[in-house]
């Protein structure tokens, strides 16, 4: 018996439908489960159920106020914003030179920068510890800005360089013919075209800094200076034996929602930003 064309087409779309459903469920379920857990209290928590069974907001209050997640959110926003700001500022000029000026040692520099962005954080941990202490930054947010530069800066330079390379040379040549200076070219020609790229790069670097854990865990001691990931990892409840899963999940939802909203708004840009470096580079 031969399968007709129609049957085959049906089979094809069935496979796609099942695959797509599984993919969506697998991706979204843990977050969905965190949300419904965060809305439960008391005994409800300990009966696995797949539909929301009540709307108790007390976990959110416990997480934000009693456990200081609100404060940690502020710390994280501060550290990530300052880090990304500094990194973008110095990488605009650097990436212009790396992408557009054929100077000697350019390839070597780019390769070094790529290597730095990949090396394990623990490799700089002791050296960074000494540096942070020497600069008097231990247990302050400044320590985090300094240490986050280690991985943010090579990342922003690398991504911006790939973006700059994709801008047509003609634009720049027109400006040169018009007698514009290098700085004017960067400011007047490149900056406006680069604005979307800057947003994307900044956002990706921001997420990187937002998620960082090892340096934040090592260089911060005081509870009120913790960043979000450290605060969540150190969550404790009334008793030391039972973790307060309800409020842990509430905190998880609170710190994740802003990122998810940002990602959904800039969805297309993020995807192109993530992949452009790999495909063209």
């Amino acid at each position, binding site marked *: 018996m031969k399968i007709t064309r129609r049957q085959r087409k049906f089979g094809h779309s069935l496979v*796609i439908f099942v*695959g*797509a459903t599984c*993919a*969506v469920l*697998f*991706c979204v379920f*843990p*977050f969905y*489960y965190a949300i419904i857990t965060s809305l439960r209290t008391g005994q409800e*928590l*300990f*009966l*696995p159920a797949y539909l929301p069974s009540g709307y108790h907001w007390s976990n959110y209050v416990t997480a934000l106020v009693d456990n200081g997640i609100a404060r940690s959110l502020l710390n994280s926003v501060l550290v990530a914003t300052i880090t990304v700001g*500094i990194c973008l500022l*110095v990488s605009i*000029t*650097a990436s*212009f*030179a790396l992408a557009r*000026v*054929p*100077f*000697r040692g*350019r390839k070597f*520099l780019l390769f070094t*920068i790529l*290597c*730095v962005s*990949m*090396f*394990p*954080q*623990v*490799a*700089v*941990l*002791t*050296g960074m510890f*000494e540096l942070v202490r020497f600069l008097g930054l231990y247990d302050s947010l400044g320590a985090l800005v300094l240490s986050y*530069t280690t991985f943010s*800066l090579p990342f922003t330079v690398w991504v911006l360089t790939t973006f700059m390379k994709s801008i047509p040379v003609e634009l720049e040549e027109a400006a040169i013919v018009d007698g514009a200076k*290098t700085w004017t070219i960067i400011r007047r020609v490149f900056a406006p075209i680069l604005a979307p790229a800057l947003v994307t790069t900044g956002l990706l670097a921001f997420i990187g800094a937002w998620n960082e*854990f*090892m340096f934040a865990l090592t260089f911060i001691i005081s509870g009120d200076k913790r960043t979000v*990931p*450290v605060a*969540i*990892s150190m969550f404790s409840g009334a008793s030391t034996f039972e973790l307060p899963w309800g409020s842990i*999940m509430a905190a*998880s939802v609170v*710190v*994740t929602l802003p*990122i*998810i909203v940002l990602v*959904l708004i800039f*969805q297309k840009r993020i995807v192109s930003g*993530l*992949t452009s470096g*790999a495909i063209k580079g």
Partner: protein
Amino acid sequence: MAHTGYQQRRRRIAWILVAPALLLLALAAGWPLVRTFFFSFTNAMLDNPSEYQMVGLANYYATHDGSSSGVLVDPLWWQAVGNTLWFTVVSVGIELFLGMLLALLMNQKFRGQGLVRTAILVPWAIPTIVSAKMWGWMFHDQYGVVNDLLAKIFGYQAHLAWIAEPSLSMWAVVIADVWKTTPFMALMLLAALQLIPNDLYEAARVDGASPWQRFKRITLPLIMPAMIVALIFRVMDAMRIFDLIFVLTSNSEATMSVSGYAREQIISYQDMGMGSAASVLVFMMVAGIAACFIRVSRLNEKEKR
């Protein structure tokens, strides 16, 4: 004439433009790296790092009265190396397989395509620590939803201790990591898939090539460069894993990674010397694997020419 003068001037200015970034990078990455290498040859302790003696290679390996010491003879170090390599191979392998399936799926035209694309960004956007906590809750031995699903779907009633049981805990880490990073792999592969001209497939179909043949002969060779880059990124990332393990399984011996080992030496035992030596070894491991990858991809390019 004026143009060459211009280029020369720009070449001189180039270094000035790069200088701020380079200086910052030297301060925040170069110098600490050099100091870590330096400390690995000393017996410095974390509480007072300014007082130390040079001990040569003793932190790596030393024999004294017939007994040997150092990172390289610590069984826990080798366990951490084994854990890290096992984790890297298994998780990146699964991610590549699932990511490829997902990318092929998203490359099809179907209703609800936008939904799938949005959904796969959710795990990517969730901070690693948060995903570790979420999975920790889902893997809970008494109230966890994973055991509950196993019981409901497969009738498997055992309360598996995903986190505490050494033979299972590494799988818990792998599953959480696969969930979080497969989207990245899928997006990378999808971007490469979208660059393949459709004519190629049409031509192959006319010639009567089966779907598998089309995949093997057209798709795979054309996305190979992007796949290698994605693999490099993922392998480098998996080799330095720390946060997920630290939170999900509390850095237990059964799951401890090399980064976790080094950090434990530095912070818990305050031993900067030993910890730095371990850090240097981690660095060498990662650098060595990166070098292998780059060599392989270069050979791959040469073959094509």
